[in-house]
């Protein structure tokens, strides 16, 4: 299969410590995977490897048949893989609108005349405003992120990742720090605007959130995959419940 993300035998070692150990995963186009596991099990390391922020000690990563292993973060982003960050990252001195523009890299092409340039800019503006609208941020477009609440910042992070029209989006704990109500709202927004036909990997500790969005779930423990399958089955698995949820028996 040429399309989608394919990861084979991925390992990451820091000195003698293994963060990831021979991880393999296939993600079909349009598929949404939930990635769960205890703290320190290597979820974020996995995301960092796929997005080129860290390089694997062993193994290979392919996206749409092209090898990504060893490619820089920016060239991976240009291939259509976008991500958000667990520890919120926004350009705090750029306005919300400019933050969105920074994300528009895959849609801006050099123009040959001023009029073409202007038309492209207007199209970009429209797209950004409609995206901001989806996340109810349109009123804040000219504010700097300092004026935003935590939930709004998370939404900005998401909206910016979407601005590049990625084929694959990687979400690192998008609901961290949110109340149950906000989490539900976020799940709805994701369902309506983010995941429609787009493949995604979602890291999250909130099991209901994963269950609502991902048909398939992947469980990591101490750098190894311990389960992979339909979400409802995985979440009922005894080993998973023991390791992840701390249940005995």
């Amino acid at each position, binding site marked *: 299969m040429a399309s989608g993300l394919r990861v084979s035998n991925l390992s990451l070692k820091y000195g003698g410590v293994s963060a990831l150990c021979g991880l393999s995963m296939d993600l079909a186009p349009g598929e949404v995977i939930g990635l769960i596991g205890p703290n320190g099990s290597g979820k974020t390391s996995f995301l960092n490897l796929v*997005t080129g922020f860290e390089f694997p000690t062993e193994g290979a990563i392919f996206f749409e048949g092209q090898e990504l292993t060893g490619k820089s973060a920016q060239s991976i*982003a240009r291939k259509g893989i976008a991500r958000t960050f667990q520890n919120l*990252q926004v*350009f705090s001195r750029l306005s919300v609108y400019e933050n969105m523009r920074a994300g528009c890299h895959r849609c801006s092409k050099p123009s040959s005349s001023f009029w073409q340039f202007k038309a492209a*800019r207007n199209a970009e503006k429209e797209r950004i405003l409609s995206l901001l609208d989806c996340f109810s941020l349109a009123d804040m477009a000219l504010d700097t992120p300092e004026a935003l609440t935590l939930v709004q910042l998370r939404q900005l992070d998401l909206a910016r990742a979407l601005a590049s029209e990625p084929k694959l989006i990687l979400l690192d704990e998008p609901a961290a720090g949110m109340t149950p109500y906000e989490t539900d709202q976020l799940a709805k927004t994701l369902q309506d605007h983010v995941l429609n036909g787009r493949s995604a990997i979602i890291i999250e500790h909130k099991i209901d959130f994963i269950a609502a969005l991902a048909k398939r779930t992947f469980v990591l423990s101490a750098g190894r995959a311990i389960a992979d399958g339909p979400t409802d089955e995985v979440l009922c698995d005894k080993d998973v419940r023991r390791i992840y949820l701390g249940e005995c028996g």
Partner: protein
Amino acid sequence: MDVYTITVLANIALFSFLAISAWLLLLVGEISFGQQAYFAIGAYTGGVSTAVLQLPFGIALLMAIAAGGLFAGLVAIPAMRLSGLHFSIASLAFAELVRSVLNVFQYQRWVDGYLTGPDGVNGFRDIRWIYDAGIDPGTYFLMILGCLSVVMLGVVMASYGRGMTIVRSVGENRRLAAAQGMNATRVRIITASVAGAIAALGGTLYAHMATYIEPAQFGLMIGVHSLAYGLIGGMGTVFGPLLGVLIDIGALETLRIFSGYRMIFFGGLVALVLIMRPRGILDEATVAKVQRWLRG
């Protein structure tokens, strides 16, 4: 306008090139103590082109821009591997290197019965193109203003497009910028090169107005001054560095009451501004507010 006013205005415009140059690097996240190097390179390249090689003024401008951009780019390629203070000191080292090389640089030719050209520490006299071409100070000032407008228009166009957003993104958070598909290293090198070209353009215009230049004019002092202008005026817009220059040269030099105490007042003013507004008078938040207000 009398010649004095024109000279002050021309000085404001000329320092604005240097201030915009340092400001651009601040935006991309680097503190340069060494933009005066490219100002000097521009001044000497332009001066040699017209006075020694007898080339037309337009060609001299282009050569200066090319030299400034080229040198700044070549310095930036290795220097951009450094970060923070290391980059600042590397830029300072390069600037002092340029100055000390100019101190021994000699390239003199007989032109119209005069020995003309850079003569090491003794400086470079008789860059007399504006006199030979019969251009009066007022006209030359307008030429400087024209060049400055082109530079500022360039920056405004870049903020209309995605250019300045990219520069600011890289300056603020390189990792996050990379996640947006930006090649941070390339952005920084290109920005440094453009900043060098802008400084060199200013330098060449300066050389032709002053008619005499010497290496000692391009010391650390003007470098740090130009850095300060951007931060006082504000980081949010290209008018920030201009405002900084205006406050320093415009207001304080022309107001006679400050004569002799200019630096005490200017220094105190700067210190105060920075306490209240660490990113200058026209900082990003203010610019955002003004834009909001303008759009209603």
